[in-house]
């Protein structure tokens, strides 16, 4: 079976990458193929990496408060590139009240502080659309 490929991405100018790196390692330990983009990626950068890598999942982390601008933009660009079927999730310091908006914009789940890496792993396994043979 093909490994599920996840892009762990840091959109925007935020440098807090402890969470992203912990997530990247936990996903790798769980058997996924993981690519970490590094910090300060524009939505365009992330969409391009997702396309080049033909990623199944795009997991974004953001702690600066710019999530309402940047997460939907990534989803939009993915759609433009014909990657609208890829699973997009987000995490970080994100107020509860922003979650409905983000979901409406196509971010399938939001993981807030205190979430277990296991929750993300299970969510991906249950929701990813992978061309498994």
């Amino acid at each position: 079976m093909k490994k599920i490929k996840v892009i762990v991405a840091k959109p925007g100018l935020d440098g807090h990458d402890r969470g992203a790196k912990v997530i990247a390692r936990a996903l790798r330990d769980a058997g996924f193929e993981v690519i970490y983009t590094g910090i300060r990626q524009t939505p365009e950068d992330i969409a391009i990496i997702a396309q080049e890598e033909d990623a199944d999942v795009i997991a974004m982390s953001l702690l600066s408060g710019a999530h309402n601008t940047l997460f939907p933009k990534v989803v939009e660009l993915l759609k433009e590139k014909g990657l609208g079927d890829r699973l997009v999730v987000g995490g970080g310091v994100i107020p509860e009240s922003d979650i409905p908006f983000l979901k409406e914009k196509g971010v399938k789940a939001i993981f807030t502080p205190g979430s277990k890496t296991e929750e993300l792993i299970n969510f991906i396994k249950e929701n990813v659309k992978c061309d498994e043979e």
Partner: protein
Amino acid sequence: MSIEDIKQQQEKWENSVQKTLEKHPERKTFEEKRLYTPTDIENLDYIEDIGFPGEYPYTRGVQPTMYRGRLWTMRQYAGFATAEESNKRYKYLLEQGQTGLSCAFDLPTQIGYDSDDPISEGEVGKVGVAIDSLRDMEILFDGIDLSKVSTSMTINAPASVLLAMYIAVAEKQGNPSTSLSGTIQNDILKEYAARGTYIFPPKPSMRLITDIFAYCSKNVPLWNTISISGYHIREAGSTASQEIAFTIADGIAYVKAAIKAGLDVDTFAGRLSFFWNAHNNVLEEVGKFRAARRIWARIMKEKFNAKSSKSMKLRFHTQTAGSMLTAQQPDNNIVRVTLQTVAAVLGGTQSLHTNSRDEALALPTEESVRTALRTQQIVAYESGLADVIDPLAGSYYVEAITDKIEKEALEYIDKIEKMGGAVEAIEAGYIQKEIQDSAYKWQKEVENNDRIIVGVNKFQIEEPPVKNLLRIDASAGELQKEKLAKLRAERDNEAVKISLEELRSACSDENVNLMPVILKCVKTYATLGEICRVMRDVFGEYEPHTNI
């Protein structure tokens, strides 16, 4: 009683404890020993290793009377949206009894982009105040006499530019730069390793820093020219020992760079300051602060031959640990912050920021900032902890853990020195890797319930979403764009152009100190983005080491 007698008695006691353990095992495996006794500090020499407050090696504190003379500076890190909004918050904090200012800048400002740069989209005013030009800085400090407050600015890669703006505002108020006191963070190495707001590669970055050292030693003598920061290294996941080890290694790199640039150690080292994290493990943290002071004093004296006692004193600001705040049951954070405050005070901090209860969710509201400030005031005025200097000294455990942290940190520092120094260790990805390993270990411990976080993996409750969070809407971005358009239309654009050209040629000539040139630029109302673009053109940009 001799130490040998104590050792014998202790062995007997340990044997008897074994019987208890058979019936009642301990809750878990502890990292620390069960009990500390005189046997743990038998090699400690009071005069050599601990000494007296205000005296070498400063283990007990850098001032002779500590908080009996003057309390620490209560300095809440604040800033959001526009200069107008943040100015109001600063005035509020000063009215509430805060004794110093601490500016938080938004990410575009910290990375040298104007608010109208496309890359700033969504980030303007979010994690701090947006400053595009001297005009914003004038508004930020409107009605605040800069000769009366000390101001700390969390700014690194473009520190010269923000310091120049601060000096220019003060001059307009009629305050000469020699009257100014405060701090710029100006610590690029930890940006590469842990915090992420770098712009230029190490070499020009180190030049910018040593230019500031040289300029301030003559023109802004009361200014702390750098705040060598372990805070963010700890936030990124390091242990207590790693926090001080990597930070002191950075400190060594700055001192070396300044000496290489031709400065005498005692002309600048007295204005170096540090910035530590305060975590929940109170006694470990106290040991950390004490160990850091002792290590730095010895390095400055022995390695760099500093003669002035000022050069050997590790003065520091502390912030309570943001990463220890929980989004769950946010009121519990007030208790965590209280413990962290106790640690910082018992550790002898010179200034302190206490986090607010709601900061795992958003920037803090005015009300929660007030509670955080009150926490400091209660510890200062009601607890008695500020009445006696370094009251934990002599505790078998506290002295032993001070020693242990010192030893662990020195091993790291030695290893980093062997790699060529902090710059090389960062470029090799070594420091980042060590921090990441600790962060991952911590996360696993939490997920396996080996480490209990109240409200997160134990004692959870169902709770409704927290209300009344501070929200920064998109209007700050729009407002800044309008202000920039107006500024560009009104200012003398020819003067701006000339000053930026002068900057360009100064950047290419290492013998020129960039501070006066940048000061000239900001006075023409050249924007932060314009100034940084010139420097980006000449210096290039840092390529990060990204490995997981």
